[in-house]
């Protein structure tokens, strides 16, 4: 089976975010970029499926040239191939735009993909929207926020987290699946993998090569402002023994905060 994994380069989760007010975007200078954590679970699942059932794993990212290093990491973990779809725009926080490009890639380059894996959401944009959008554009079923995936032939079943329970979804392949923490434990790159990845070439494709006109890749989200949240006032530290502090806390929660 041909397995596609869409991966994104994102600032690591420790990052301190600074904002460029004029550009209505974050300041990228000084940030450490990584493979988005959920995408790592998606990639690991692809590698495990290939190991169990054979086939080929292709990692694809839509982003700037710097995303090449994220794709190299995917190769080092064991992906067979990697492709960069070159983006000349800054992050536009428009999931439709990204989904259109990824769906166009599948149609043009991987129409026979049996399984298309994503992360649950990309760290930073926090949309969790691209996977269902791509599924819809390609007319495929989806299972999102998946913590367990079972495939037998063309039939698949996935467990997804819902409020207070797990939901089991049954679907036919080809399909879109988005990975949640708990699906697996991603492997580390090996030295051998890193060396092998260095020898591979990562083809770069442009939007025009995917048959996308400029119009289709224009962001349709109008960003009005990007701000830091208001800093929180320092709270009260309650003195005394554990018992005294607990009593005072309950009193304050009732009378002052009205939270009890």
């Amino acid at each position, binding site marked *: 089976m041909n397995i596609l994994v869409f991966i994104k380069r994102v600032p690591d989760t420790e990052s301190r975010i600074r904002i460029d007010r004029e550009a209505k975007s974050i300041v990228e200078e000084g940030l450490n970029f990584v493979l988005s954590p959920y995408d790592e679970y998606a990639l690991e699942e692809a590698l495990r499926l290939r190991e169990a059932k054979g086939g080929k794993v292709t990692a694809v990212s839509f982003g700037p040239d710097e995303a090449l290093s994220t794709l190299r990491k995917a190769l080092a973990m064991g992906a067979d191939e990697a492709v960069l779809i070159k983006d000349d725009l800054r992050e536009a926080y428009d999931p439709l735009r990204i989904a259109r490009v990824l769906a166009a890639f599948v149609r043009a380059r991987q129409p026979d993909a049996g399984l298309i894996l994503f992360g649950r959401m990309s760290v930073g944009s926090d949309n969790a929207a691209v996977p269902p959008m791509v599924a819809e554009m390609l007319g495929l079923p989806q299972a999102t926020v998946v913590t367990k995936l079972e495939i037998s032939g063309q039939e698949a079943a996935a*467990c997804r987290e819902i409020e207070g329970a797990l939901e089991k979804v049954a679907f036919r392949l080809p399909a879109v699946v988005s990975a949640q*923490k708990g699906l697996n434990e991603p492997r580390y790159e090996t030295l051998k993998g890193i060396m092998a990845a260095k020898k591979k070439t990562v083809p770069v494709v442009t939007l025009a090569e995917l048959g996308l006109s400029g119009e289709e890749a224009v962001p*349709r989200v109008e960003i009005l402002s990007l701000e*830091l949240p208001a800093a929180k006032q320092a709270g009260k530290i309650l003195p005394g023994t*554990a018992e005294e502090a607990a009593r005072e806390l*309950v009193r304050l929660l009732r009378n002052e905060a009205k939270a009890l």
Partner: protein
Amino acid sequence: MILCFIEIRDGKIKKSSLETLVAGRRAAEALGFPAEAVLVGSAPEGAAAEIGAAGAAKIHHLQNPALTDYSSQGFALAVEGLVRETAARAVFFPATAMGRDLAPRLAARLGVPLASDCTAVSVSGGRLVFTRPIFAGKALLTLALPAGPAIATLRPNVFPLDAEPGPEAEVVPHAVAIPEGAVAGKVAEILSESGAAIDVAEADIVVAGGRAMKGPEGFARLSDLAAVLPRAAVGASRTAVDAGWIGHSHQVGQTGKTVSPNLYFAFGISGAIQHLAGMSSSKVVVAVNKDPEAPIFKVADYGIVADLFQVVPALIAEIKALGS
């Protein structure tokens, strides 16, 4: 008109979808038109009264035997038909597991983007404006969706549920045609977790513990505290989850759940940025930690510098005393 999606789980209307409806009604009023509810599949008893009380005069009930069980494909197709038929200006969903699965699919069918997990909706210059946390709450993005109907999911527990009792809503049935082969996957089964009565993401109060809980017994003490509090659930840091002391569905943070309860207790949680990501929209935060320098105190409204194993039983006793 703003359409608001009503989510049904276990034969009941989910509270977060009523919050969505109230937020939709407010925004619609500011724009000078109504908000109406959309309900797909089987409607629970009393829905018309409950939805009427949240302020919608009309419920569009989309029906087809293939819509009995949730499927993103079937539901998206059904709602799309209604959006086109009614020329709705916007469609709001609760940002629940179902809402976040479904709304992007609908948006793609309509060829428009969407605003995910919004914490504010307002009207400015005659159009809808959405605010959503990005970078796990480290920044706030305010945006408009000028292209076609505005699709948004709204974060549960953030929008108030004001009951301004309205009359029972009118139910308008719509028979939906679902072409052969249009649905290639659907929910087969719901596997309930034992004991988890309220999900952390839906609880009014979250009692969370971290590495300092030391083991599953520590979390049992937190369950005792949750049991004496109204609509409370137990949460955990990733460290506690990874140690296997409590299930992943309880994890709060960047790789866990985002919660916005009225009251959040952090017991023996240091306050790493990835943990704060999941709870920074809580209304009141209480931190209990032995280390006065723990970063969690920076985001806490009330702090106690002490051993949590002394504070938890004292709190249980105080709260029980309130009840009697």
